Structures are given as C-alpha cells and as structure tokens.
C-alpha cells in the first residue's frame, strides 16, 4: 500500500511539474506582451522588460519562476490591481470559493446519495420516478441558469436572500450559490447511486445475505453500500473539479469575489493579466491533480483488489 501511494504521489508531482512548464511556456511565447496596452516609449518598454527579466532566455525565466514559486509567492500582477502582489489577493479569493464550493460538495453528495438510495429502495414506485425526474432536471439545466432563477425568485421577487453576495452574512448568502452549484452533482450522484445500488442488490451475494436473514439497514450498510460506493466515488471526484467551471459563472452572477471571478477578470478585462492566468492555472491544476491523487488512494482503501493488482503488476 505504501509503495502504491508513493508511486502515485511521485507520478502526480511529475505531472504537475510538466503542467507548470507547459503553462509557463505557453504564456511566454504568447504574441504581444503585457506592456502593449500602455502608452510607453520603446526605451521604457525595454527598461521594463529588463526589470522583469523578460529578455532572458525562456528556460532561465522558468527557473527564476520556479524559485519564486518555491519561496511561496506568485510575483506581481501585470494588469489587475495596479500590479500588487498576487498571493494575498489570490488567497482571499480562494478562501471564498472554497467555502462555497465545500458547502455545495457536502450538500451535493449527501442529498445525491440520499435521493439515490431512496430511489433504489423504492424501485419502480412513485418515489423512484420522482428521483429520476429530479436527476434529469439537474443534468439538463446548467447550474448558472438555476442560479439566475433562484436569484430572480428568492432575491428579487421575494426578497428573502440578499440580491448580491454579502460577506457580512457569509453562510446565509452562500446558500443560493451553493445550492445551484450542487444541482448537477446531486443529479449525477443520485442517478449513479441508484443504478449501482440496484445492480448490487440484484447480485448473488446480497441475495445470499438476505437468505441468511439479514435485512434492513444492516444489509444496506454492510453489503450494498460498500460495494456500490466504489463507482460512486469515481463520479464525485471529477464533480469536485467541475465545480470550478460552474463557480466561475455563478460568481459572476452573484457578485462573489472568488477565484473564478478573478480568472474572468484576468482574461476578459482591458489588459489581460498574464501572471494571474499563470498563477490561477497552476493553482487549479494542482487542485485537480490533488483530487485525482486522493481518489486513487481512496480506491485502494475502499477496494483492496486495486492495490493488490497494482502491487503484482
């Protein structure tokens, strides 16, 4: 098990390094540069480039950037916030995004699992149909459309929630964005849980357990859920990362100053902020890789067969 984890961690670090390199390269070889927007004389641009080390070879720049990263900094912005250091701003935005994202993950997986289990236990009955309808709705309505709907009806028509995100009422104003973000996860998890549970419940070993006299909660917990859980974990993990994309729009709609909005600002403002794009790209990629790594380790814990085959191979 230790060897398996070590191998996976090493692989992930290598991937992350490669990604940072590719991102850096892409951003450096990009046509145009950060100063083309401002009115500067040629000498000033040259001087500025020298100051920022942009006239060195790309590889040297990359090593410099790695050193910068290692010292726990992302450098300064080129267009946003008048070139202030990126890290404090990024941290603040990430914190906001994480809180809402975390809430929606918890909400999504708990509600999704519950709906899926209820549907599987009432297979073919009314509740099952209702759950199917909910999960279909979640798949075909984009989360931001749901957010617009929520905002229009529960903040505009019925002014119950604040119309825009209000940092002074953190939890209260996080409810609507978290709810709409979790819509897609709820439906995917519910549908998946239902199908997996039904499949496991039809399997021979569950029939045997039933024949031996097990019933109710104990049967579901020890025999059905544990085996149905492996495929479910596979869907949950990518959903966590997909939240990022959804969060980008929802943050725009609800005026939340989170990481997604920062990304939108960095790419669609008057001046594109190269350093923010790079920093956010690295943060998002490392989060994604971390989630995938966690997922792989979790597999090993939930299903011993996986780590055994890896050891042999």
């Amino acid at each position, binding site marked *: 098990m230790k060897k398996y984890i070590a191998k996976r961690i090493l692989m992930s670090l290598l991937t992350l390094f490669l*990604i940072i390199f590719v991102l850096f390269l892409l*951003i450096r070889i990009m046509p145009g540069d950060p100063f083309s927007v401002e009115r500067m004389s040629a000498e000033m641009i040259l001087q500025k480039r020298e100051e920022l080390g942009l006239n060195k070879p790309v590889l040297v720049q990359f090593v410099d950037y790695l050193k910068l990263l290692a010292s726990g900094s992302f450098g300064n912005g080129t267009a946003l916030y008048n070139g202030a250091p990126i890290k404090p701003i990024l941290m603040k935005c990430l914190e906001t995004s994480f809180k809402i994202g975390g809430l929606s993950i918890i909400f999504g997986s708990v509600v999704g699992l519950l709906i899926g289990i209820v549907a599987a236990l009432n297979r073919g009955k009314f509740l099952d149909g209702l759950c199917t309808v909910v999960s279909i709705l979640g798949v075909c309505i984009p989360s931001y459309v749901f957010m617009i709907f929520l905002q229009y009806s529960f903040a505009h028509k019925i002014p119950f929630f604040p119309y825009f995100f209000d940092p002074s009422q953190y939890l209260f104003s996080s409810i609507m964005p978290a709810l709409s973000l979790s819509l897609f996860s709820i439906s995917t998890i519910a549908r998946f849980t239902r199908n997996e549970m039904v499949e496991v419940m039809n399997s021979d070993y569950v029939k045997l357990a039933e024949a031996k006299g097990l019933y109710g909660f104990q049967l579901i917990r020890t025999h059905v859920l544990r085996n149905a859980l492996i495929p479910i974990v596979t869907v949950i993990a990518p959903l966590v990362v997909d939240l990022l994309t959804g969060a980008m729009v929802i943050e725009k709609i609800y005026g939340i100053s989170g990481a997604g909005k920062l990304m939108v600002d960095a790419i669609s403002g008057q001046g594109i902020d190269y350093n923010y794009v790079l920093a956010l790209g690295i943060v998002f990629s490392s989060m994604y890789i971390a989630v995938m790594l966690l997922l792989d380790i979790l597999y090993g814990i939930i299903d011993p067969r996986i780590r055994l085959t890896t050891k042999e191979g």
Partner: protein
Amino acid sequence: MENIYTPDKNDFEFISGRDIEVDKNFSSQGYWKGVAVHFFRNRFAVTGLILVGVVITFAVFAPVFSSYTYEEIVSINDGGREVIAKSLSPQFSGDGSQNLFADKTFIFGTDDLGRDLWTRTWQGARVSLIIAFVAIFIDMLIGTSYGLISGFFGGNVDNIMQRFIEIASSIPTLVIISILAIFMEKGIGLVIASLLITEWIGMSKIARAECLKLREREYVLASRTLGAGSFHIIFKQILPNTIGPMITQVMFSIPVAIFTEAFLSFVGVGIVLPQCSLGSLIEAGFNNITILPYQILSPIAVLAILMLGFNLIGDGLREALAPKLENM
C-alpha cells in the same frame, strides 16, 4: 474397414410441394435493426428524438422564414410614427386586447436594441448546434483514431500515448480555456478550439477500451493471417465494430459542447455581437432580468430542451446497444 460407404447423390431426393416453414417469431435480425427496435420501443428515447428534431427544424427554418434578420433592428409603425421596437414583451397580434403594436408579431418579444427575439433565439440555437456538431465530429475523428491506435498496438506505444493523455487530462478545462482566450480572438473559433482540445480525451478512452476487447477476436486473427496490415485491421475491421459505443459517447458529448459554448459566451469570451448563440442570448437576457425577465426565457427554454433531448437519446442508445435481460 475397406468398404466404407460414401453417400451418393442418388441417395437423397427432393421433397417438393411441401411448405418449408420459416420461424417468423424468432427469425434472426440484423444487429442495427435490433438496436433500432429497442431504441424506438423506449418512450424516453423517442421523446428525446422528437425534442431534438423539433429544435433542429426550427433552428434551420425559423431564421429563413422569419420576416426579420437576426441582426436587424426592427422599426415599427406606432400610430403614424416610426419607432424602434425596443424591449417589447411577447405579444400576439389580433388577440383583441389593447395592443399598441398589433400589426407586428414578436412571438418571443424583442430585445433592448429592438431585434426580434424569435429570430435571434433560433439563430442562436443554430450557431450553438453548428459549433457542437463541428467540434464533436472532429473530436470523434481524433479521439477514435488515437484510442484505436493506442489500444491496438499496446506495449510501449500504448504506454507513451496513455501517459500523454494522463497529463493532458489533468489540466482542468477552465485553465485550457483561459490560456486559449489569451491566444485567440474571441468568437466561434475560440469555442471550437477549446472543445477540440478537451473533448477528444473521453472519446479516445472509450475507443481504446473497445479496441482492447476487440483485438483478441478471431476475425482479427483471421485478417492478420490473410496478410492484412495493422492499419487495415484497425480502420476496416475494428472501427466498424466500435461505432455503437462511439455514437453513444457523441450523444453525451453534444450537450457538453452546447453547455461549454453557452458558458463561454456567458463569461464573455465566446460569441461576439452581433452574432448570437444561446449563451450570449442568456447573457443579454440576464443583464435585463429584473425589468424584462421575458428576454431570458426563450434561450433558456431552448437550451434546456436541447440538453434534455440529447441526454435522453444518449440514454436510449446506451440501453439499445447493450440491452439488459430485465428490460427485454
């Protein structure tokens, strides 16, 4: 054992005049015919097909037959004056109510510049569908070839190709899109490019899995024995047998593509004015939502119908291609 009897032609005789009964109930049936029967027996799948069909029909014909173009700012005659038809709620002529603009019909209303939303919505659906179809078609070509080649050759080729996929798939879509947004002009090209880069990976995974299954089959061995080259086997023998799962994957990818387009246009790096797509229409509607909420309704409805339709078709296809005993 010398006198082994060899059957002779004269030992057999034709029985004429007797009906040879063919078992009609359990007669054998072609693979695709069976799939079609299963598919059309599924109520949800047929509903999906109808929904998508209706939207495509409107997207193709509605802009053609509309009296306005999608970028035309419509002026109307209001009691002798020429007025720009700005922000009119949906209204139907001839309903007898007090209708200022009774001589003009705007089924979905007009937007805040005075363009007919009916035309714009279907034009937007057309753009969204074209983007989705083009991007997913190219993705299918790339993904299938990549997956089949990787799966067929195995060994080191497979190893290297799979490592590449592993790295490519661990860059989040959002990051790829934002890098592209810096590189490229905003517009259709950007949307298609980001779909091309992200969507082929899923396809190649499925193609590879299918290929791993199929390459051990006897017909591949037979073909190889007869002297067929690898590429002949991959694209002439294995490819036709992967079509089923690939089509299913395409049906699930199209809504993703439509969604991505809508998302990009909403964020502001997608379709640029005066072009429109479902995403940019939703964005425009969102800006006026508190005063003119009807503007956002039509693009959202079309988007939701498309997503629902394609998902239902995909589900139906998946079941029809691999029917489970319990559903038969």
